[in-house]
């Protein structure tokens, strides 16, 4: 008999709560101790953005596979849906962070006495009221759509009616168009405007590809945890293979966009653009190369063969590496501008806060998993999903 109702055991909850407690202790240490307010704020932004994006990627996966009607994804769709439950929590935390002073600690353009000729020209876009309007609008629409898509998706499961299946497809198309625009604009707002003088047209998609790869890695890890707990028996090696292919492909996609951005700036050699990478080469040289190795070199070679994508013993270490790698990627986007080379570093504060946010993210995700059966048995494509077979 398959076990489809997920129950959170006390042990699991305790683990997550301890992780959150570690995060809070790290935050307390950051506020009271030596690291300084700027570094704490930059770290909060990093982790908040990271885990909010993972939630969004969960929803993105559900919607992409809904409009493409991919049968195989039906078996693991619940994980993406559960990850999207973090969107309201992560969004609210981010807004609270901005309101409670994070905005001024991280973003130079919020200080009126720091504005020079270039930044003054950007004030029609980069001003606080408009920034808040945009942030609230995007987070609000995301949370509302996540809630509504989840509701319709559960209806598909309960009724198995084609009416809901079609409605889910329509909603998904709307979300994908909205997310395509909003993910780019929010990455300008929340990340690129840290270095307000600098700009890159590829930035939004670069950040999106980074989050996409780590989102797949997160889905694989959550699937593994669930399987270890004795759930998700209907997910077979073919589905895992497909997730592995995604991880492999999106890691290459990330490298492609990383290189496209770096190459053009390096080649054109215009000072107002190269200043961005000059800072990263000067003060963050080691992390700069570690980032490339973790996000591209290791997944590329480790997941190249068919067997490695089909076995958890390879897939899980690579997923963990990719998640760490894209955390480092965000670190490189945020820290040089927000904190600077001398004051930043990876220490107890960074590790503690990340563990804390990870605990919160997993707690919300697993709590959302308890709310619905783990397999959508009445989904029109469920049977096809179980029979799915992939050769390469």
């Amino acid at each position, binding site marked *: 008999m398959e076990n489809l109702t997920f129950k959170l055991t006390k042990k699991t909850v305790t683990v997550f709560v301890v992780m959150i407690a570690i995060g809070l202790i790290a935050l307390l240490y950051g506020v009271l101790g030596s690291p300084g307010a700027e570094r704490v704020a930059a770290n909060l932004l990093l982790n908040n953005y990271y885990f909010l994006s993972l939630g969004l990627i969960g929803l993105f996966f559900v919607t992409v596979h809904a409009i493409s009607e991919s049968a195989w994804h039906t078996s693991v769709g619940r994980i993406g849906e559960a990850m999207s439950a973090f969107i309201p929590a992560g969004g609210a935390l981010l807004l609270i962070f901005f309101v409670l002073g994070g905005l001024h600690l991280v973003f130079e353009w919020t200080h009126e006495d720091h504005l020079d000729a270039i930044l003054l020209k950007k004030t029609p876009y980069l001003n606080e009221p408009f920034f808040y309007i945009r942030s609230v609008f995007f987070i609000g629409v995301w949370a509302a759509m996540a809630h509504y898509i989840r509701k319709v998706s559960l209806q598909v499961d309960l009724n198995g009616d084609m009416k809901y299946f079609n409605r889910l497809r329509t909603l998904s198309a709307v979300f994908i168009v909205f997310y395509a625009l909003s993910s780019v604009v929010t990455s300008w707002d929340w990340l690129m405007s840290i270095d307000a003088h600098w700009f890159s047209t590829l930035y939004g998609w670069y950040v999106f590809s980074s989050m996409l790869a780590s989102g797949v890695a997160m889905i694989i890890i959550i699937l593994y945890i669930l399987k270890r707990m004795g759930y998700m028996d209907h997910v077979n090696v073919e589905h895992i293979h497909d997730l592995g292919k995604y991880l492999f492909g999106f890691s290459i996609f990330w490298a492609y966009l990383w290189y496209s951005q*770096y190459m053009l700036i390096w080649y054109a*050699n215009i000072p107002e653009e190269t200043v961005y990478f000059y800072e990263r080469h000067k003060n963050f040289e080691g992390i700069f190369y570690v980032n490339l190795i973790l996000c591209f070199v290791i997944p590329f070679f480790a997941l*190249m063969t068919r067997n490695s994508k089909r076995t958890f013993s390879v897939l899980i270490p690579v997923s963990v590496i990719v998640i760490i790698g894209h955390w480092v990627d965000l670190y490189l986007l945020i820290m040089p501008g927000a904190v600077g080379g001398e004051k930043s570093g990876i220490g107890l504060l960074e590790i503690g806060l990340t563990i804390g946010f990870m605990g919160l993210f997993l707690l919300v995700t697993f709590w959302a998993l308890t709310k619905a059966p783990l397999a959508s048995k009445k989904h029109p494509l469920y049977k096809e999903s179980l029979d799915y077979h992939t050769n390469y």
Partner: protein
Amino acid sequence: MNKYLTAYYLDEEDLLKGLKKIKSKGVEVADVLTPFPVHGLDKVLGLRRSRLSIIAFAGGAIGATLGFLFQAWVFTRAYPINFGGKPYFAVPSFMPVTFELAVLFAAFSMVFAFLISNNLGPGSKNIIHDEQITDDRFLLVVKMDEEDDEKVKAVEIILSDAGAQGITLKA
């Protein structure tokens, strides 16, 4: 000289059923020729996975290495030119050519490996077992090594027992 015993079916379900029966009797089936891909045939035949991807990786690795080394040699030793004050050994600018050569070598090595391993290409001679395999026949080929007529007859009986519609022996 090898002899081939061929048996054809007109339906893929019959073919799969017959094939299982024949294999259970211990007859080695050399190949099955079908007008379209038949699901589950690989498993019944016990085919190994193609090793073409290994050759592709080797070819790609060789191409990438050669492309990189060649550029490194040209731009630092053979004909160094200063491009806007950039270093001679400029790794980022080497990447496009390195990548292209990796793809080119991987593709070519795969094509030639495929042609050689399947005995295809210009000048190769292949036996056509049945002209209708591109039309509506599912053909099953058994290689007969010996001149032993009794053995041929025994296999023939097994094939017709397994529901083959027509059996022919070709030299």
